């Protein structure tokens, strides 16, 4: 294992153990900024770790970022590792980030679906769902992005346990989802929630389960436009943006529909690189450029949340 996060290889994919070891190194190197929380346990009893970046205070307004909820989308967990190091590296010398951390905390869950992630590394690289098993069901796993209590079970998810978009027996049936639900409710002061997927190069905001526009549609669309412009400015990567249902398809029980309905206005989902050359098998050499460009968009969203308290 690397001796420090400075010698960690950000240009390759890593195992769950290596990512968890990275987290511990980052915390040990930066005890005044970074701490590690365990918000729950997965179906197979793996800890669900969240990194907290804070300059102090109690229950300050916060930003939540998660990666890897769909386990096969490896560029997202790898980007999450890069984001964590970036926050530490830049928290003093980057004025924008420093000012965000002066007022807000950042929570980052890098491996949101650890059971699925381990399964992709050991059994089936293409595994997407959780690894929950239920008696009487022929197939394993629930789509953790269809399991939230927002339009749950509606059109845009499947009731077939063998489907890749199986919504599960009931909302929050998956401990990986329930852990975030409980954390968001208990914290109560999260102002921006960003859930990161791949692929397709999209920046999306609610809703996915209904065609009814969200009340804040205009503002979210404007933020998306600015964020995508920032992202594209680095390498020219082209993104589309809009509401989930108008930009891709109807999807019920989705993460950010629930977070928005909880009152977290700045709720977004990213679909990172690429648009369909490698798909989920994005070459490792694209990890860092993907993370770098995405970081620019994340900063736009975070700065907007900082400047528009509600």
């Amino acid at each position, binding site marked *: 294992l690397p001796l420090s996060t400075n010698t960690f290889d950000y*240009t390759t994919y890593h195992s769950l153990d290596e990512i968890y070891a990275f987290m511990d190194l980052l915390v040990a190197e930066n005890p005044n900024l970074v701490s590690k929380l365990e918000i729950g346990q997965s179906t197979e009893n793996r800890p669900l770790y969240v990194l907290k970046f804070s300059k102090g205070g109690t229950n300050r307004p916060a930003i939540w970022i998660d990666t890897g909820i769909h386990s096969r989308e490896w560029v997202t967990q790898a980007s999450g590792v890069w984001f964590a190091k970036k926050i530490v590296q830049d928290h003093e010398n980057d004025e924008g980030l420093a000012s965000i951390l002066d007022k807000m905390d950042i929570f980052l869950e890098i491996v949101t679906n650890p059971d699925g992630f381990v399964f992709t590394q050991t059994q089936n690289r293409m595994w997407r769902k959780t690894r929950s098993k239920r008696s009487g069901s022929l197939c394993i796993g629930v789509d953790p992005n269809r399991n939230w209590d927002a339009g749950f079970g509606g059109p845009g998810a499947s009731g077939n346990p063998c489907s890749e978009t199986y919504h599960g027996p009931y909302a929050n049936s998956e401990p990986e989802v329930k852990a975030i639900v409980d954390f968001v409710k208990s914290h109560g002061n999260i102002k921006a929630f960003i859930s990161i997927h791949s692929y397709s190069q999209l920046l999306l905001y609610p809703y996915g389960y209904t065609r009814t526009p969200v009340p804040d549609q205009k503002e979210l669309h404007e933020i998306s436009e600015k964020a995508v412009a920032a992202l594209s400015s680095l390498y020219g990567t082209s993104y589309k943006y809009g509401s989930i249902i108008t930009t891709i398809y109807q999807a019920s029980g989705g993460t950010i529909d629930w977070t928005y309905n909880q009152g977290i206005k700045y709720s977004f989902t990213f679909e990172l690189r690429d648009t369909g050359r490698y798909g989920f098998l994005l070459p490792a050499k694209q990890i860092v450029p993907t993370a770098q460009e995405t970081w620019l968009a994340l900063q736009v969203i975070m700065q907007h949340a900082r400047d528009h308290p509600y």
Partner: protein
Amino acid sequence: TETFVGHQVLRIVPTTDEELQKVEELQNLEELQLDFWLAPRGLGHPVDVHVPFPSLQPVKAHLEANGISYSIMIQDVQALVDHEQTEMLRSRR
């Protein structure tokens, strides 16, 4: 461990409602073990489908019989997975 030797990912861009319907029909054929990386979502939007080797011939026949053009996005899924593993091992060393 699941292997993907001979598996391909096909990209289909439905341009008519009929084509879209024919592609959606594939979603219901569970025996083909198709994995839709990008699900059908409307005309002009790409559909990416991971096709196991045994299903390649029937799927391509279905598309060609219905005059639906497709491209091969990933020629050999296993080759990419192997490369990824090699990269990870190299990095560890």
